[in-house]
């Protein structure tokens, strides 16, 4: 039971990153390998707001996420849209965007290394224990999970019950047809890319309340998020959330029952199973 709850808390954080990434890849068609850097940037942002102005990290999301939104919008419009326009086919765009976002990833890591050094950071926020079903958990973890659920719920309502959310889903299905029904596809792509970055930043702010972070950990989170996105099916928000919880629980199980050094092996085992048996994702339909 303890494993289950800890796993769900971890999975909840993964879920927001993965949902951010699935929006960026599913809608904007950009495989953003620098997405983990949004998360690290938000960790440092929340840390700075808390230690300088004692702003509660959960409230801090309201500051960190819009900054990430603006930053990602600018990155998309200035750097990635030229690649979208230049690409002759989907494969070329994939290669180009992978390389360009690798560049962004290293530049962001370099800047953060210069700014904060290579050391590990953490801070105390709501670190008192709370008892659930007879076992103790950090209150900060439970608060983070609650906030992640609220954000994911809001996103679900936006995508499924608003006009613009429907437009974004239409672009995810087929950009060419979406253009035919008077959807501004370039703008929707930029919006989805920026929204994905903002969601990842929000999860970073939540993560920083209970996780020790440093400037170069972004890649590991990007990789896990990518695996979750594929497990859940590209562009599928619901699938990403379920895959994230599954991964969180698996990792926690392996870490507490076998060896904490083998979490990545657990992730890869899941990944290989998905690749071999359901490469279209857990909820994906078979492609003809």
């Amino acid at each position, binding site marked *: 039971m303890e494993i289950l709850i800890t796993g769900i808390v971890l999975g909840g954080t993964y879920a927001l990153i993965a949902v951010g990434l699935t929006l960026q890849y599913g809608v904007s068609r950009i495989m953003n390998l620098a997405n983990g850097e949004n998360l690290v940037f938000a960790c440092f942002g929340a840390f700075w707001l808390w230690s300088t102005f004692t702003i509660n990290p959960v409230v801090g999301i309201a500051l960190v996420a819009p900054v990430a939104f603006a930053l990602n919008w600018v990155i998309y419009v200035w750097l990635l849209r*030229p690649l979208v326009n230049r690409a002759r086919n989907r494969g070329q765009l994939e290669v180009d965007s992978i390389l360009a976002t690798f*560049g962004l*990833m290293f530049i962001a*890591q370099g800047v953060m290394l210069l700014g904060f050094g290579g050391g590990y950071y953490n801070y105390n926020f709501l670190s008192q224990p709370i008892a659930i079903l007879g076992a103790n958990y950090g209150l900060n973890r439970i608060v983070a999970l609650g906030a992640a659920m609220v954000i994911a719920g809001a996103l679900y309502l936006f995508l499924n019950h608003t006009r613009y959310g429907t437009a974004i889903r239409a672009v995810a299905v087929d950009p060419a047809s979406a253009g035919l029904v008077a959807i501004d596809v370039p703008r929707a792509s930029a919006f989805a890319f920026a929204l994905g970055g903002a969601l990842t930043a929000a999860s970073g702010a939540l993560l920083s309340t209970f996780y020790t972070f440093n400037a170069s950990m972004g890649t590991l989170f990007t*990789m896990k998020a990518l695996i979750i996105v594929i497990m859940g099916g590209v562009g599928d928000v619901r699938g990403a959330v379920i895959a994230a919880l599954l991964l969180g629980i698996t990792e926690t199980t392996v870490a507490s029952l076998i060896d904490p*050094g083998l979490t990545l092996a657990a992730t890869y085992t899941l990944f290989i199973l998905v*690749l071999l048996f359901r*490469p279209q994702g857990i909820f994906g339909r078979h492609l003809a």
Partner: protein
Amino acid sequence: MKPLLATVSRKEAGIAVLGAAGLAAAATLPLFDTGYYLSLALNIVMYVVLCTAWTLFSGPTHYISLATAAFFGIGTYSVALGIDHLPFPLLVAIGFVASSVLAGLVGIATLRLSGVYFVIFTLGLAELVRQVVTWAQTNFTHGVGLYVFTDFNETHIYWMLLGLAAIVYVTGWLINRSRLGFAMRIIGNDETVARHAGIDTARAKVALFMISGGFIGVVGAFLAPRFAYVEPPSAFNPMISFQVVIMALLGGTGRLWAPLLGVIPFTILFDQVSAHFPNHTSLVIGIAFMAVVYLLPRGVIGFVDDMRRLKRKFRIVLAEDGAAGKEHAS
């Protein structure tokens, strides 16, 4: 079938003579300096082999492999684990086979699918193997570090790598003119066409990836004596994967020898940067990636080709102008 030598064109023979002369000249370097310049040249040859082996697979398929560090580390570990029990050449062979087998497994799992799956899988592969090796060593052996004591010094390693470079180039040339190479060119241009022409695309890709991975493993095996003390973080250093990608793409992947054009300048630049500004290495790699994508999408070789074509066009225009001028005068 004609004997192999009879099918070599005059141009190919010329390149072979030139390459052999270059190799021979490079091999004399340790006679002049065994300090800094040998060390730098060793790095350059190491990356030349790594990038050329990488290009063997990623050039025609356009799949970006980040598995280099994993194969390299496996080669290093094959030597480090067995150096007290088995002769060195046998260990190198084991390194080749072990890396090929890993490449084959990765290939079977991912190469049937689109390129993105492959990139993601290889992105974490080195880290995965590192975790498994560390776990196995802490649980089943006495410690994590291994000592590699041999009689090899940098000069020997340098010569071994030069020899390997020659083998990789010849292999690349042989593949290029084989059925496999022909199949890869078709797959690179259009995979659907290749499949309709009766090519087993997944099998061809896996075969090539195994050859490429095996060579990278051999480089790791050769480098083990240089480390002297091997532990998982140094053997499975993920930066190697990224550096290989950036150097190979900087040079260009269209021709077998094109990565050379990226390896030499980048290795020297990176050496200088890590010596004088050690905190700026990530920034340099990041900027290099951006430069390749936005300024040199087909690498230095593509740029050179463009310039040549432009010059030829310019010459034709000039000649036509000249002819037109003469007509006008008469």
